[in-house]
């Protein structure tokens, strides 16, 4: 299996008054192409920070992060924006939809920034929303939808520009158990369909059932890496067989 993300001795420090907090404290690891990787750990262990570093939303204090062939820790803000536009999707616990736009417009937004013409991006957004089962909610504003529906919209948005990697930070944290499973099925389904890599942060142990690997984080360090329960992912199986 080839690595799509490589972290080499990555640190991220925060200054809180006079104190220096090492949110990420020397992590080296690889995320493989096409895998669904779970980051687990107690609250405050540095999972979100790690995810933001990998997605290029924040810069490491030390160490290198490579996605594909690009050292994203060396990119400037404009290059990062372009890189995110093309290769990265992000799903937040709080959905982070734009409250004044409809579901359809929210999903089309990343494509707007890519310069995709209106007609084309609306068509794509419609397909994606149909894919997440919101065919009859396209014209709704976020405030007119349930949490689960909003998270579907944000999932559709994350997949809009066909990213190589989708990051999700506790995507089901605000949802009930039934919806959580629905959402996980949906995301893994979509990732499988498009051969995308997913990195999911969660402290929900049920979710780890969907992962090919579970990376346990404690105090900004990797505690251990577990192989996840196989859930009939032919692709990963096939790759495993090849190795």
């Amino acid at each position, binding site marked *: 299996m080839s690595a799509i993300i490589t972290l080499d001795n990555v640190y991220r420090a925060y200054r809180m008054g006079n104190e220096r907090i090492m949110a990420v404290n020397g992590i080296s690891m690889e995320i493989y192409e096409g895998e669904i990787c779970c980051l687990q750990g107690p609250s405050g262990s540095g999972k979100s920070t790690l995810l*933001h570093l990998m*997605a290029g939303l924040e810069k490491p204090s030390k160490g290198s992060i490579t996605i594909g062939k690009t050292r994203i820790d060396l990119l400037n803000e404009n290059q990062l*924006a*372009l890189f995110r*536009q093309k290769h990265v999707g992000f799903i937040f616990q709080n959905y982070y939809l734009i409250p*004044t736009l409809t579901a359809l417009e929210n999903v089309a*937004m990343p494509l*707007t*920034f890519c310069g995709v013409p209106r007609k084309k991006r609306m068509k794509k957004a419609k397909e994606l929303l149909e894919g997440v089962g919101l065919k009859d909610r396209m014209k709704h504003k976020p405030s007119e939808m349930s949490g689960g529906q909003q998270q579907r919209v944000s999932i559709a948005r994350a997949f809009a520009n066909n990213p190589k990697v989708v990051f999700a930070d506790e995507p089901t944290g605000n949802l009930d158990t039934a919806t959580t499973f629905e959402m996980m099925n949906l995301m893994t389904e979509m990732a499988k369909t498009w051969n995308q890599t997913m990195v999911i942060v969660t402290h929900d142990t049920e979710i780890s059932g969907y992962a090919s690997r579970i990376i346990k984080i404690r105090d900004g360090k990797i505690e251990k890496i577990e192989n996840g329960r196989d859930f009939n992912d032919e692709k990963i199986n096939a790759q495993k067989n090849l190795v």
Partner: protein
Amino acid sequence: MKLRDTLFLSIKNLWRRKLRTTLTVLGVMIGCCAIVVMLSLGIAMERNFMAQVNQMGNIMQIQVYNYNYGGKTPDGKDIPPLDDKMLAHFETIKGVQGATPVMNLYLKMMAGKYVSHVSIIGIKAEMFTLLDIPVIEGRPLQEGDTDHMVVGQYVAQNFYNPKASRYRWEPAPEGFNLMEEKVTISWDMNYGEKPQKGMPQPKVKAKPVKVEAVGIVGQSGSEYDWSVIMPFETVMKYQKEMEKWNKQNSGSSGGGGRIIYKSAIAVAAGMGGNGTDQGYQRVIVKAKHIDDVVDIMDSIKELGYECYSPIQILDDMKKQSAGLRQILLGIGIMSFIIAAIGIANTMYMSIYERTREIGIIKVIGAKLRDIQRLFMLEAWWIGVFGGILGVGMSYLLSFLLNKFNVNLGNSEIWTPEGMVKLNSSYIPIWLTAAAFFFSPIASLIAGLLPSRRAMKLSVMKALRQD
């Protein structure tokens, strides 16, 4: 991100905050309107000065007088005579189109059975057209003319029949046209009159000269209306003849008009008489362009001559009103600056409110330029709408100011057509265009700092804010 999408999104964002956007647009409208109206008052003032000055005669003509002959120029040199040589020199000054000597003579004219005392102005025939004297009938004077004249419009009104009645002079009838009459001219002021008992008859009879009226001057609002214009050399000749005739009759040199000015100093220095002239009494210099007039006048004054042009009045008027107009403009600019601060304030507010949203669009791939543009265009739209409304309101205000005759200067001037009301406010097209253009530009400038701030927000900080 495509510009069209940015334009659309920015207007959509503005529309989200209707009340605040409307208030900001109103601020820009008032600022824009203040500048336009204040400027329009100043412009109207200047236009009115122009109209008034145009009433006074031609602004591009400079009257040069030889009053100071025999004195010194400002830098201590003798003032040269105002002669043909000097005239030729005037014509070499930059911006001068031509120059002509002017002389006035007062003679008696007879046309048919009517007579009149007539003021004659002598100018160089070839300069006639340069002086913008409007000819409404016949032709102007031209080179080669001798005993020809162009007649002022009101000259015919002064003709009367001296022999008609004992007690009353009979005026010439309506439609009396000198161009259709046989006209003669004489330096004998009693020419054509009924001989009065007891009045001494001249020893030698003055021989009248035949003259031909070739044209009639329309309304010019100047001395030409009441005078007859003839070639300079001809008037000069009449002058000499008149002096000769006067001498023959009485030996004295009295007469109708004295043209060549003899200063006391010149006479005392033995320079008087016909041989040693100080030159012409008056010369008219015509400028090619209105902007040259002041410079030409300065050059001529340096030589020691007195100059006069209506442009001096215009200049004085402009100087007097300059302070007022600056204050007006200042008020306008001030209100626009306040409007611009309003824009910046609105922008900062909306950036503050939308911090998280800015974070979100950064995460999903908005480039720095996209974000800056998004906010700049919001400011731009405010400027566009404010500008349009501001110009509209300016026209309305301008209309009301004129209607109710709110005025800062004179409100009426006299023209040959009667009293004409002056506008208090005038908005030229260029001002409208400038308002449409500068309002969005100024708004963009006001939006520059806020949009930079939006652009510079760090993604995670923006996302964390609630």
